């Protein structure tokens, strides 16, 4: 699967000028409100006809302003999940789910039973949309899009209208969707926590332009990315494997950074996890720290020190086979004389385990 998007569109007071590719997995379009993410996904879906541009899916042009080709939405074979679930109020949940089936020309890739059990909506089938909670509605909307047998799923902030409890109710379903179906997903969001948990590829948008794009792990350890995310959100994302559990309740993980210890979790050895290490949770020391309460201390080498607008600097480190970002004050960086190739120790204060891969 590959999606290739080139768009140029002029709105009153705003210009969209975008180019990116998406491969299998979850491609997250990340950016602030008003950065043009929804316009991009609408152009892919065929709901917005851009002034110029080309959208290609698996070698087939969905639209191409040069040749004048324009497939209407109902011929594109893309499932769209909107922020507001937009269930048909006059149909039952079951009828909503099977709506797209009437028009699908693709083979049976996924059955109603599969979708119902994937999304846990078996009890809702005979209810009407008016009687569902926000989280339930959104799960049905996802199921409805899936059952239209799309070549690709488009999701426009599918969790934005939900409270935190509902979000954490749906996120595991989205992870299962990514891991258990082969359907690629284009996911629009302005919430870094969702993106860090779900995305395989990250496309960062600002003011109608793509400012950065690439594999999530690589981008998240790039100091350049921090300029777009803000210091609070900056942090590396690392894939890890559970090695085992210790008697004192800690879980040992193997990661490209090295071995890590996290508070015990119910996971089998061999299970894949995704870790997020915020840059502000990483401290640096020139000598191997003794008498420190932190458990995870890794030998590292400084790759670069980048200065932002504030009093802080971001230090990019090479640790094991991966990269890690540390956020420290400029004063500390000066007194430690940090610079490229300097050997340091990274003290990781906390590791967030964001999902099971």
């Amino acid at each position, binding site marked *: 699967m590959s999606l290739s998007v080139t768009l140029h569109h002029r709105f009153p007071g705003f210009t969209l000028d975008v180019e990116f590719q998406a491969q299998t997995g979850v491609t997250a379009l990340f950016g602030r409100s008003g950065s043009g993410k929804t316009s991009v996904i609408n152009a892919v879906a065929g709901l917005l006809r851009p002034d110029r541009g080309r959208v290609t899916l698996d070698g087939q042009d969905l639209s191409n302003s040069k040749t004048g080709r324009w497939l209407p939405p109902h011929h594109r074979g*893309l499932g*769209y999940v909107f922020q*507001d679930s*937009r269930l048909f109020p*006059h149909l039952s949940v079951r009828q909503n789910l099977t*709506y797209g089936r009437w028009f699908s020309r693709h083979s049976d890739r996924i059955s109603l039973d599969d979708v119902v059990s994937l999304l846990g909506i078996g009890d809702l089938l005979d209810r009407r949309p008016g009687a569902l909670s926000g989280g339930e509605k959104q799960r049905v909307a996802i199921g409805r899009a899936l059952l239209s047998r799309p070549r690709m799923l488009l999701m426009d902030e599918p969790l934005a209208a939900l409270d935190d409890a509902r979000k954490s109710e749906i996120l595991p379903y989205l992870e299962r969707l990514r891991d258990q179906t082969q359907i690629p997903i284009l996911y629009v969001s302005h919430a870094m926590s969702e993106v860090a948990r779900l995305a395989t590829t990250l496309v960062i948008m600002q003011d109608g332009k793509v400012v950065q794009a690439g594999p999530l792990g690589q981008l998240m350890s790039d100091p350049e990315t921090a300029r777009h995310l803000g210091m609070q959100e900056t942090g590396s994302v690392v894939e890890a494997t559970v090695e085992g559990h210790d008697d004192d309740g800690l879980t040992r993980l193997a990661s490209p950074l090295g071995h890590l210890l996290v508070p015990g979790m119910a996971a089998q050895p061999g299970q894949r996890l995704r870790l997020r290490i915020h840059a502000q949770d990483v401290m640096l020391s020139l000598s191997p720290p003794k008498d420190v309460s932190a458990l995870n201390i890794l030998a590292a080498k400084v790759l670069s020190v980048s200065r932002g607008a504030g009093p802080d600097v971001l230090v990019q480190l090479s640790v094991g086979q991966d990269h890690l970002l540390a956020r420290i004050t400029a004063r500390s960086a000066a007194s430690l004389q940090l610079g490229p190739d300097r050997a340091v120790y990274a003290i990781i204060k906390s590791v967030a385990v964001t999902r099971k891969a």
Partner: protein
Amino acid sequence: MDSTFGLTPQEWQAVALSLRVSLWATVVSLPFGVAVAYLLARRQFWGKQLLNGLVHLPLILPPVVTGYILLMGFGRRGPVGGFLDDCCGIVLAFRWTGAALAAAIMAFPLMVRAIRLAIEAVDPKLEQVAGTLGANGAWVFLTVTLPLILPGIVAGAILAFAKAMGEFGATITFVSNIPGQTQTLPSAIYSFLQVPGGEGAALRLVLIAVGIAMVALVVSEWVGRTIARRIAGI
């Protein structure tokens, strides 16, 4: 004097004719009403204001003027009427079918208005979703728009029926007031009031008119509420 429900044959004929005229006027104009309402609510095209004006004209013109225009156009020597007579042997002037045409045209603006409001109340986002799920324009209309505007269609139809039942000016101008042929309920009431001793017959017809109007209102309320409940998804 002794006849069905205490009505004389002439009175009964007027009631039956009115019901028939109104029913036909409503049923035949309904698809056009939905189509025009959809065009006005959802489409942008050249001449949209002109169409809007034409549809609403009978609401503003004196009914007699509308009837006269119909007579000019659809009379036997009118351009449309002459053509219909020549090609298919259809004559509208001074027939009950003409009364139905007059009633339909007079009721059309009310019907279109009610349906148009219902269409405008349908969230276009729902139609958009149906498109992304693979439905083309016609299917979107049939499976999403139409079920959602059903209460509006029912309301528009009953409003049009009630208007057709009461239509007088255009009807009497276009098809005259021939007992048994074109004498509708209002024309009959008018005629009875013109002759001495006709007040009794007029009063009976008035009561029937009131009764029919009440029944229509109650039925429309009930149908509308039932459909609305079904659509609300409860």
